[in-house]
């Protein structure tokens, strides 16, 4: 596999974005994004659909030219030299980019040729990747006959075939079962550790976000937070208590009066962020015994961070696939 990688990159920044704005007619999709992604890190871009995530992805993938601000991908200006970026970039779209009428091998051969790889070279690399991703036995099957999980793996193989320094993945694990999701992510970790590949991905899954080196939350066209998952959770501090009350609105007022903290009412349950959560749990249950269905107590999750920053819920629980955005 090492043969597939180009020389180790000298620079330390894979992506440098300064003041990126983007509009679709009246609608503003991105309002001044500043972001640096380092070489060799796994960076997660998170945010609800319609928040600007997809537009950012398209700009980075050189599908859309930046309208305002500056974007450098692998030290090349995305507005002026998209063609210099493309050769060194691997892109895995949310939408399948495979031809179902071609076999796995044929799809990869086509992709290799698009990246200027010769037949023999392309075949060698394809064989190595298929082996590594557990696809070797299905190499001569038509892509349209593959399961969703296998097809995603072929997408990944395709995105990695030309040995990119940077891989962009848009919701790569949507539609995969939890086990397949973990395998997929482990392979990304392997790419980072063994081959120094920089990975930028968008995701709806909290467990996946937790495994990123750093994540950035995009909300309403702005980057509202960037940091390691641990640092972001530490910003909330203390604990998060979720109270499911019979009458949430009334309970919100009563908690506010009795405890002096302000619960946030979201999706019919009350969330309280506070330093000594276990004491609050005891006190709130004692104070309003008949009015509470359940209380959950825990350390802040990335979901709590997102709620804290935006007042909205975001992650899908894994059962429901997110809508396309």
């Amino acid at each position, binding site marked *: 596999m090492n043969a597939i990688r180009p020389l180790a990159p000298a620079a330390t920044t894979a992506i440098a974005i300064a003041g990126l704005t983007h509009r679709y007619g009246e609608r503003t999709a991105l309002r001044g994004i500043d972001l640096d992604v380092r070489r060799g890190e796994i960076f997660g871009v998170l945010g609800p659909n319609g928040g600007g995530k997809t537009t950012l992805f398209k700009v980075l993938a050189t*599908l859309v030219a930046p309208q305002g601000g500056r974007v450098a991908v692998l030290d090349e200006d995305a507005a002026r030299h998209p063609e210099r970026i493309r050769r060194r970039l691997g892109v895995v779209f949310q939408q399948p980019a495979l031809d179902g009428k071609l076999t796995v091998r044929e799809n990869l051969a086509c992709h290799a040729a698009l990246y200027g790889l010769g037949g023999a070279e392309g075949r060698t690399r394809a064989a190595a990747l298929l082996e590594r991703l557990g696809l070797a036995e299905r190499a001569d099957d038509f892509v349209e006959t593959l399961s969703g999980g296998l097809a995603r793996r072929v997408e990944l193989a395709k995105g990695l075939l030309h040995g990119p320094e940077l891989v962009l993945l848009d919701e790569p694990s949507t539609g995969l079962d939890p086990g397949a999701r973990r395998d997929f992510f482990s392979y990304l970790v392997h790419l980072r550790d063994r081959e120094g590949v920089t990975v930028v991905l968008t995701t709806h899954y909290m467990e996946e976000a937790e495994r990123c080196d750093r994540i950035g939350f995009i909300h309403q066209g702005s980057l509202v937070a960037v940091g390691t998952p641990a640092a972001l959770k530490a910003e909330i501090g203390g604990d998060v208590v979720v109270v499911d009350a019979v009458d949430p609105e009334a309970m919100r007022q009563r908690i506010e009066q009795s405890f002096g903290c302000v619960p946030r009412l979201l999706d019919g349950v009350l969330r309280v962020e506070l330093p000594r959560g276990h004491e609050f749990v005891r006190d709130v249950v004692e104070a309003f015994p008949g009015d509470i269905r359940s209380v959950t107590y825990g350390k802040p999750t990335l979901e709590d961070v997102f709620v804290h920053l935006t007042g909205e819920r975001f992650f899908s629980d894994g059962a429901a696939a997110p809508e396309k955005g």
Partner: protein
Amino acid sequence: MRGVRALWWREIIRFVRQRSRLVGALAQPLLFWVLLGGGFSASLRPPGAPADLGTMAYFYPGIIGLVLLFTAIFSTIVVVEDRKSGFLQGVLVSPLSRAGIVLGQALGGTTLAVSQGALFLLLAPLVGISLSAAAVFAVIGVLAAIAFALTSLSLAIAWRMESTQGFHAIMNLILMPIWILSGAFFPASGAAGWLGWLMQLNPLTYGMAALRRCLYLGMPDAVGLVPALGPSVAVTLLFCAAAYGMAAVTARRSR
């Protein structure tokens, strides 16, 4: 160049795996030919066509033109489908230039169109044409030029399109009239004044003229009043360049 070849190859392999397209592109023109050629009896012979040429024979080159047109349309519908399926996105982020992508698509469409048009040449004896080897070469050359121009023109339209429905509408409004007014159906000399002018401005008129002259190579009397071979070939090559240029520019502007 590898990328161009890969896209060309993909068009061919997809076609081979979807045989219904072959039937569509051959059966429909054949049906048109029999119905129209049979329907227009000798008394309704296209005005201005050579007197000793029957309706079926007059329509024959035009029907080959229709085969090329249908094949061009079929193969460019792939572009719209590729956009919908996501395949095109994968091609767009590759290092292959937009001009290269369009070239691969156009050459793929051209190859398919020429092979099907060439199949129709087998029917030439039915209308009393016996093709010499030289004529076959000349005809295939002309077919390739016409097919490349028509495919590129369809691609220029297809690259703008989001759905196949809109595509069909535009095709019927632009490409079918181009074919009807190319001398495939009736000669310019017999058409009403303004129609005659339109036909002279229509680049496909010259492609069809070149095709007629090559089918009847060495028998200029059988062709009637159509533009001479040299200018016809020249205009057709210009048509190729212009249509390809249009498609490449459209693709470059497309996301």
